[in-house]
């Protein structure tokens, strides 16, 4: 099917998210949609998939103007979108998630649907078991579930928003293979929203570039990375590496001795690790390899199962998040709107909330909070106004706000996926803020699925694979592809040592 959008406008509060956008997406093609954070990519895709309605403009499908509201209507017209955070219901099985959105008779024909899941997944090379609970699936599997579900609903145009964040390179290869087959053999239109230029270069036939809500470029592939960067930012970016610093001499902030973490699905082998002031340790690993529970246990959000955990010499094992926080630990979670920010609150309210009260009766000084917000907006380059609701901001701007809400002088920063889904410029801005804190003596523990990011910013890398760990002492001697092998379990491919007692 061919989709044509004409003069789409959309505005959120003070932000013009889409400004007179007109494009044609022909059938059977894979189109990359590029743009830095807040450029309006997600908004445009949400309009196409019915999650939002445009303020102005028309959508023509196969030569016919269509005016639809809601994702159900879009799916009926053949347009389905895979959200950045899959929209499934965690406490239900794969089967149930598959079923609830399916049209049809009141009585659910279970055996028929079961077959449909299995045959559709088999056809495109996915491995989904209908009886698994969704909260036990990895992000990649949840994506697969969504894709299978949309395909079974007869979708002819598939929109994917940042599908490669949080999945391994093998899973990515498989996803891309599937997408190419769907486009080449089934004639489906695939729209890929991504910040990762490599992904777009590997996969797409064509790219369009948005900047500040406007369509600024359209290119047939192949084209070079630097040309795409040029289109996105109007300038070339150079890669930077961190300065070498001597951190071994500084004080130990976090000392782990035979520290273990257990979840229902996984137990992480004992870890012994000293984290010094100013040190940045990256946690690498596939989704679900143990790094998430490990990070939560280092912040008191989860209880460590055994061993010792000392913060500045004080034994903290078994204490709660509140005490960790008072000891100077700050945590930034990967799911921004689930853990970290509060939908329905304005930016200023977030700032007011995170600041210590200086009034004896706890009366809030909105004027001061507003001024503070202005400072942060300019310092962290947040695009939005203080009185905007947090959910009106783009993902990148939400992340910048989240970073700006972290304490100024923490002892230990634990951050999941600090730059997930962000463009190069924002990544650098955020790391600038994080590194500034580390230079003031904060120790940083971060996880990332971006191997470049891990190699670039880590002083040491702790690789997780199925609960086993391996410490890379000198990432500068490690290439991205070695690291890629290591997170797949081939610890021999990188120098370093098993972190074991």
């Amino acid at each position: 099917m061919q989709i044509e959008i004409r003069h789409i406008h959309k505005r959120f509060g003070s932000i013009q998210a889409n400004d007179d956008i007109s494009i044609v997406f022909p059938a059977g093609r894979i189109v990359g949609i590029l743009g830095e954070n807040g450029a309006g990519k997600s908004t445009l895709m949400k309009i196409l998939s019915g999650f939002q309605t445009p303020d102005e403009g028309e959508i023509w499908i196969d030569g016919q103007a269509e005016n639809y509201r809601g994702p159900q209507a879009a799916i009926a017209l053949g347009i389905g979108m895979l959200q950045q955070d899959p929209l499934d219901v965690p406490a239900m099985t794969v089967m149930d998630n598959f079923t609830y959105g399916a049209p049809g008779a009141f009585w659910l024909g279970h055996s028929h649907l079961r077959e449909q899941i299995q045959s559709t997944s088999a056809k495109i090379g996915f491995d989904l078991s209908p009886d698994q609970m969704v909260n036990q699936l990895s992000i990649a599997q949840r994506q697969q579930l969504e894709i299978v579900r949309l395909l079974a609903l007869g979708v002819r145009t598939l929109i994917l928003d940042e599908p490669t964040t949080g999945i391994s390179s093998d899973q990515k290869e498989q996803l891309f293979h599937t997408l190419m087959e769907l486009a080449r053999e089934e004639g489906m239109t695939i729209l890929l929203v991504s910040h990762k230029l490599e992904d777009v270069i590997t996969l797409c036939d064509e790219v369009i570039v948005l900047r500040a809500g406007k369509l600024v470029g359209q290119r047939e592939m192949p084209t070079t990375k630097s040309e795409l960067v040029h289109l996105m930012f109007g300038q070339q970016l150079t890669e930077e590496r961190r300065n070498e610093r001597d951190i071994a001499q500084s004080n130990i902030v976090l000392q782990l001795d035979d520290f273990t973490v257990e979840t229902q699905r996984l137990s992480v082998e004992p870890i012994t690790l000293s984290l010094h002031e100013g040190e940045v340790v990256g946690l690498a690993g596939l989704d679900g390899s143990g790094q998430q529970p490990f990070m939560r246990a280092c912040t008191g959000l989860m209880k460590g199962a055994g061993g010792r955990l000392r913060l500045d010499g004080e034994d903290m094992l078994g204490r709660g998040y509140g005490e960790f926080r008072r000891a100077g630990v700050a945590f930034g979670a990967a799911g921004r709107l689930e853990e970290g920010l509060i939908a329905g609150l304005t930016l200023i309210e977030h700032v007011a909330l995170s600041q210590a009260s200086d009034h004896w009766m706890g009366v809030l000084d909105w004027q001061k909070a507003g001024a503070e917000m202005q400072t942060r907006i300019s310092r962290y380059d947040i695009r939005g106004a203080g009185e905007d609701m947090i959910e009106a901001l783009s993902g990148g701007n939400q992340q910048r706000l989240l970073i700006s809400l972290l304490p100024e002088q923490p002892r230990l920063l634990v951050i999941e996926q600090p730059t997930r889904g962000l463009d190069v410029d924002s990544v650098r801005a955020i790391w600038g803020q994080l590194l500034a804190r580390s230079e003031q003596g904060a120790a940083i523990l971060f996880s990332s699925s971006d191997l470049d990011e891990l190699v670039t910013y880590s002083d040491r890398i702790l690789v997780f694979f199925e609960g086993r760990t391996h410490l890379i002492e000198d990432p500068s001697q490690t290439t991205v592809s070695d690291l890629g092998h290591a997170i797949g379990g081939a610890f021999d491919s990188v120098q370093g040592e098993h972190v074991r007692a």
Partner: protein
Amino acid sequence: MNHTPRSLGLRLVFLVLPLLVALFVSAVILLLLNQEPGEVLRQAWRGAFGNERRIASVLNYWIPLSFAAMGLVITFRAGLWNIGIEGQMIMGAVFATYIPLYVPLPPILTISLSLVLAATGGAIWAVLVGVLRNRFGVHEIFGGVALNAIAAGISLYLVRGPWALVGNNNQTPVFPRETWLPTISDRFGVSQLMLILLVIAVLSIIFLMGRSRWGLQLKATGRNRQSALLLGVSVRSVSLSAFILCGALAGIGGAHRVLHTYHYLLPNVAGGIGFLGLLVVMLSGFHAAIVPLVAYFMAALSAGSTRFQTLLRLDPSLIDVLQGILVLTYVLFSGIQDRFFPRIREGNEEMKKEITTNE
């Protein structure tokens, strides 16, 4: 500024329109019952506003209802369903009963101590709900329902047992005359003390919600507990404090029932006022400032209905039907409003003003 918050006009339309629709539907039902809707309305109006005495009886219903509803504003803001409010009112009434019955003290001391005890009783009952939730993971709705039943049981036991009036097992003895709350006048039997306390409560809650750090923490906890926790809000103590305050206000509402309305304790002393409070807060759209108005309307409806039976030979439970219709139309219209007039932003008008002037 391109923000278009819902205009005051629109909000007023959506306050009045459902009321008219509800009146219309009610009129149809009355016609089906062979009643003259105009006459029923006139009787209801006279029942509520006919003379000083009737206005006073509306106010005497409105005061405890407003105390309960203002308390519920707090728990709703924290995202908590304090169904236990009814039990908290009962416990307030029970705690307020002891001193007037058994401890001879100067009236001023009796009244003030009774109010303090009532607030404590309500707060204890609410804390139980909070602790059940925080420590044992019992949802506040289940905890609340259970504690309501227990509170009703306790009041029944006291009324029938240790505190029973000889020869009547449905009430305690009547309190000594001097422990009754003083009223504005004999004809206008409304307690000025309770009115003042209510005004103070309403104003402080509006202020706390909009201007205090605690109010913001409540809102954050209500919207997203996990995020609030990560942003440094101690969500457990914030929810517990919401329960405590709500319970204390409900307890004072309960005290009004025994110290003023009845002057004795009886088994069903809260009389569903706590539950009605839940409706009032929902109808007010959870806005603290609107709550007293809606509560007044509900109180007038309830007072007006007492005349239905005597004058029109209508079953007084008809008023529940009419209140139900009102609730349904408001829910319906708030759905319509969200659908066709989506809110761009809501929040603190005061704050917005200040920010705009900053720029």
